[in-house]
């Protein structure tokens, strides 16, 4: 008996149609379909990339040369704050949820996500959250200007608009938590029979672990901003020294969320890269089990390193030593991952289509960011590095040619599956090369700036920093512009491309998603697929 005939009446009918509903609102606003919701998330995040990106362009334009030419310092601070909030919560995180929605059911042999109506909710909260956040820019007291870290007492100096920021963060948090609940519930309950945990693709594994991280830390952020809210508007003094509170306590709470948060943005990237490299090396992933354990240990360690962001606040020596050692330890599982990717390529039979190019770019440039992370872990020297452009360079290496390149790699990799058409390989490659070269012109000189003594989050600088700021800005403008190519390639692929994609798409692709047609049916696996050596992407069983 097939599942289409098994409607149970206590369930809403709308997640059981075989074809997408025809009305626009029915299709998009009321959708409970994992693919449509995935698309909504991806389109939303692309929009946010461009909004956050334009803010970055304003920042780089003001920093193009010494002196203030374009904006007032307070607006500059609103730009740095908003840029980060939007990129972290509006672009990277929703993009990963979009990938999770599209791919997880297809990868584990399920018809849809486990909780389709909640899925609709968790997406549709986001546009409201970000409208609210962005609207603060137009309010009297302006947008938040205390940095994405929202440190009090500075953040409490913001005006009435601060309440909107706090509520927007609450809504993003609720959206993320619901999305994560859905991911976990789906992975734990909806796998096709025979798809044991250790046969799951790495992307599914990394998302499972990410979802647990999210559930553990988003409530912590919510708690922290709630306390800011009551400090600001209701006269409490959690973080107000004058009233007996402790501003440093906020930093501890924030980074207890914040460090796992940076891994929330990168673990799914590890997953995507671990899918792509084997495909184009035509060789199984090296050390599958080790990859799973490495991911889990990174997640565990991410809870006990938070104070490496606070080496200068004046902690006891033993505390500093503990956080230094724990942070250095993270390099071990991170190293295992990098070595395993290289070993997967080793003695493969490689081709270099756009997804592979982005994946290789990821491995190299993410590793550079990981190595500068190791430098930052050394507390004694971090007293120099901290709050300089060296830190800015570090986290942009791990986040832009790291997380964002992985998002692009994944997009090129699965776009033919999603749309049923091939994208333009030529323009994809142009996009890759322009992005890779410009991203290095943009961020590499920032290492020099930081080492030479330029603090972060300043709208103007002394003339000794002029050369590298100009180079960095030029790289930034090219990088920003080259993302228009990305949009062009996607639009062309969706609407114009006439080259049909096969089900398999890539010669070396393995895994359940490639057994479905391109584009796949509206409900992925109405009948659980057989799980055997030919449908499992990679498992470590063939000893």
């Amino acid at each position, binding site marked *: *008996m097939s599942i289409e005939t098994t409607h149970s009446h206590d369930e809403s009918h709308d997640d059981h149609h075989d074809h997408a509903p025809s009305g626009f609102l029915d299709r998009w606003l009321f959708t409970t379909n994992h693919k449509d919701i995935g698309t909504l998330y991806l389109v939303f995040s692309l929009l946010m990339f461009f909004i956050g990106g334009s803010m970055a362009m304003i920042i780089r334009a003001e920093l193009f040369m010494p002196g203030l030419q374009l904006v007032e310092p307070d607006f500059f601070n609103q730009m740095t704050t908003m840029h980060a909030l939007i990129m972290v919560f509006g672009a990277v995180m929703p993009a990963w949820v979009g990938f999770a929605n599209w791919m997880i059911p297809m990868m584990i042999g399920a018809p849809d996500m486990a*909780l389709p109506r909640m899925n609709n909710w968790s997406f549709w909260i986001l546009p409201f959250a970000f409208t609210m956040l962005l609207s603060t820019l137009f309010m009297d007291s302006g947008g938040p200007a205390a940095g994405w870290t929202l440190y009090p007492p500075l953040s409490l100096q913001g005006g009435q608009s601060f309440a909107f920021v706090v509520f927007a963060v609450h809504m993003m948090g609720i959206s993320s938590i619901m999305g994560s609940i859905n991911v976990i*519930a789906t992975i734990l*309950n*909806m796998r096709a029979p025979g798809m044991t945990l250790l046969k799951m693709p790495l992307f599914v594994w990394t998302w499972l672990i990410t979802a647990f991280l999210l*559930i553990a830390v988003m409530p*912590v952020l919510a708690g922290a901003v709630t306390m800011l809210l009551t400090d600001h508007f209701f006269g409490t003094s*959690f973080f107000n020294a004058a009233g*007996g*509170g402790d501003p440093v306590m906020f930093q501890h709470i924030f980074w207890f969320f914040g460090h796992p948060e940076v891994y929330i943005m990168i673990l799914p990237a590890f997953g995507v890269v671990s899918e792509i490299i084997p495909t184009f090396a035509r060789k199984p992933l090296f050390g599958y089990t080790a990859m799973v354990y490495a991911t889990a240990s990174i997640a565990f360690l991410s809870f006990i390193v938070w104070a490496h962001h606070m080496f200068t606040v004046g902690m006891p020596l033993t505390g500093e030593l503990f956080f230094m050692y724990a942070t250095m330890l993270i390099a071990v599982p991170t190293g295992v991952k990098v070595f395993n990717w290289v070993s997967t390529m080793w003695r493969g039979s490689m081709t270099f289509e756009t997804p592979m190019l982005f994946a290789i770019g990821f491995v190299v440039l993410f590793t550079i960011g990981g190595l500068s992370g190791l430098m930052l872990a050394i507390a004694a020297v971090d007293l120099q590095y901290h709050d300089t452009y060296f830190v800015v360079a570090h986290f942009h290496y791990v986040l832009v040619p790291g997380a964002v390149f992985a998002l692009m790699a994944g997009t090129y990799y699965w776009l033919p599956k999603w749309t049923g058409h091939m994208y333009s390989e030529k323009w994809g490659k142009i996009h890759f090369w322009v992005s890779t070269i410009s991203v290095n012109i943009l961020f590499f000189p920032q290492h020099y700036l930081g080492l030479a003594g330029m603090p972060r989050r300043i709208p103007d600088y002394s003339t000794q920093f002029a050369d590298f700021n100009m180079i960095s800005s030029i790289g930034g403008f090219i990088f920003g512009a080259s993302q228009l190519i990305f949009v062009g390639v996607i639009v062309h692929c969706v609407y114009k491309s006439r080259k049909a994609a096969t089900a398999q798409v890539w010669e070396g692709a393995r895994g359940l998603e490639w057994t479905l047609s391109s584009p796949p049916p509206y409900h992925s696996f109405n009948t659980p697929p057989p799980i055997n050596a030919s449908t499992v992407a990679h498992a470590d069983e063939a000893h």
Partner: protein
Amino acid sequence: MSLNSREDLANRRSRAVKTAWLLGLIAAGIFVAFVLSGVLGH
């Protein structure tokens, strides 16, 4: 295992809903615990 049967799908869905409630409660618990620790630590 009658994996394709009507009961199976219903079972999986109801298990998923239970998982979801559990996780939701954990999240709410962490939130309350953190705010309370802030209030009490005061």
